[in-house]
């Protein structure tokens, strides 16, 4: 076990893949000489050169579009989007090109590529730098969507994503880059598996990315007030969903809460709840609860910003209120 920061785990994953395979390249705004906006590619340019750490212009459509072409040409590109909101300019490439070339060509084209995707409410970055797009990305057939909420997963899943022959969007949360965690370098981590962060028997709380930490912060108070135990699941793979792990947990607890940072309308948690309602209706003892971001652009002011997304306090309050009417 080695302790490292989330961004260091990502850096190490990229470094090892670049060392092992000369076809791995990384491109994006400021990924080379500058070392990456969140320092994820720090130090790599001096090891691998500007030919493999490619500083691009501010042109997201081309960052992802060029990566698609590089993959067609035989490279294994890692495209970095500086922050999720900027990716909207690249959505034509993600949806119309990256996700479809393999299928439209009947498997003749293979796109071994990763789009690294920092997102989420960081701290007072306001409406155009704070959003989350896992709900849109997961609605696109033909791409894998991973969300790293954990340092160990960040290291292993990013490595697997780079080695994978399918296109992957690798979502990172901007507040996690300086999070410390233990990495077991020799562990065998399946990037498609959800992680049981904490075991429990009365309530399943499903989350991902930074909200997992907020749920974990909320759980002692929930357990204290209700006298019941919570099972916390970090989904990790958002598409496909590890329904096996979810099913086993929900069948055990009979109750489901989903906590997500994105806007509630059309948010990713709706998919989890609708799947549970369709597949596990009779295993549920209560109507599921979704705790999500408000349907509002993310405001700048800190008080308003925190009011727009779930926090540990709100998670406690909403689960207690819901639990009171649902036998918890």
């Amino acid at each position, binding site marked *: 076990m080695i302790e490292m920061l989330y961004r260091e785990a990502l850096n190490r994953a990229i470094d090892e893949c670049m060392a092992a395979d000369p076809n791995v390249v990384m491109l994006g705004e400021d990924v080379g000489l500058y070392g990456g906006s969140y320092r994820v590619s720090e130090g790599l340019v001096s090891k691998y050169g500007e030919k493999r750490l490619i500083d691009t212009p501010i042109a997201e459509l081309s960052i992802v579009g060029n990566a698609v072409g*590089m993959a067609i040409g035989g490279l294994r590109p890692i495209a970095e989007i500086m922050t999720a909101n900027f990716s909207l300019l690249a959505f034509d490439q993600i949806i119309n090109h990256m996700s479809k070339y393999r299928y*439209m*060509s009947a498997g003749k084209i293979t796109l071994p590529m990763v789009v690294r995707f920092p997102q989420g409410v960081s701290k007072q970055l306001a409406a155009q730098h704070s959003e989350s797009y896992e709900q849109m990305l997961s609605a696109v057939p033909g791409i894998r969507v991973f969300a790293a909420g954990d340092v160990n997963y960040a290291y292993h899943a990013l490595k697997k994503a780079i080695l994978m022959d399918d296109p992957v969007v690798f979502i990172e949360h901007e507040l996690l880059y300086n999070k410390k965690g233990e990495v077991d370098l020799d562990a065998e981590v399946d990037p498609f598996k959800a992680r049981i962060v904490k075991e429990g028997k009365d309530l399943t709380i499903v989350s991902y990315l930074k909200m997992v930490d907020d749920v974990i912060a909320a759980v002692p108070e929930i357990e204290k007030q209700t006298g019941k135990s919570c099972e916390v699941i970090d989904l990790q793979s958002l598409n496909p969903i590890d329904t096996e792990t979810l099913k086993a947990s929900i069948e055990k607890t009979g109750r489901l809460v989903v906590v997500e940072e994105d806007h509630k309308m059309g948010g990713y948690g709706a998919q989890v709840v609708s799947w549970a309602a369709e597949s596990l209706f009779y295993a549920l003892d209560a109507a599921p609860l979704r705790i999500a971001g408000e349907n509002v652009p993310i405001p700048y002011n800190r008080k308003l910003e925190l009011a727009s997304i779930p926090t540990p306090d709100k998670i406690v309050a909403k689960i207690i209120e819901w639990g009171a009417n649902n036998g918890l």
Partner: protein
Amino acid sequence: MDKLTAEEIYYTMVLGRKFEYAAKEHYMTGEISGFLHLDIGQEALSVAAMKAFDHGDVFTTYREHIMAIARGIEPKAVMAELFGKKTGVSEGRGGSMHLFDPTHFFYGGDAIVGGHLPNAVGCAYARKFQESEHGVMAVFGDGATNGGAFFESLNISSAWKLPILFLCENNRYAIGTEITRVAPFLEQAKKAEPYMPTMEVDGNDAVAVYEAVKEAQAYIQKSHGPIFIEAFTYRWEGHSMSDPGTYRSPEEMEIWKRRDPIARMQALLKERYGMSEAQIEALDQKAQAAVDEAVEYASKSPEPVVAELFEHVFVEEVAHD
């Protein structure tokens, strides 16, 4: 251009036109569906560019049946794809607009106007990275030159000196909108001038297109960076089968039909290469036979089965997909 090449180009142009008329006929019967964009009138450009560009990768648009055939993909595999059959070049998943074959370095078949240009640029990066002799040719229409992807691609390929040929097929109309109504000039090469050398060519003159593309290919192979060719041409049919093309005057159509690229190539074969009427007639018949065979093959081929619906989404299957 030697006689053999001239003959080959003429034959493929005739094959292409007959192929397109056959596709039109079978669209009318309902055997071909969806969007069908015909290339009739533009055969010189489509065929000569593909024949000339023999050291590289091609990225093109949805009006690509003739280009695919000129690139070496079997006409029957293209026709079967139009018919939506399992034996089609994309196994019935792509249709008319999405023909791909990496064995011929042919990467579509893209139906987002201008959207394939960043892909072509990325592939050119890979070729430079690999110190390959291959360059990339990106083919697009005048309509693509007004979008952001186009300008980003000019900028990046020029900044990084990438081996890419931008071949603009200027047929004057983006569906029903004449280019000069939405751009400040007719010649779209002007947009590329700050970034790279540009050439203009008569797109209905197969020899001129062939020579320009050969010259451009040699230029990008020497790592001078990107180059731009604008070829002026005209489609005789509507944008797609659902477009009657009423926005163009009969007079204008007539002018362009008098510039028929096939008639011009045929005259050249006779005058410069001394081919007889009978020899040309034999090539025409050979082309007709190839098209008939393609239609026969396509109509008799099996459709994909529903059980294959999920095939080719991913390389790696996952248990809970």
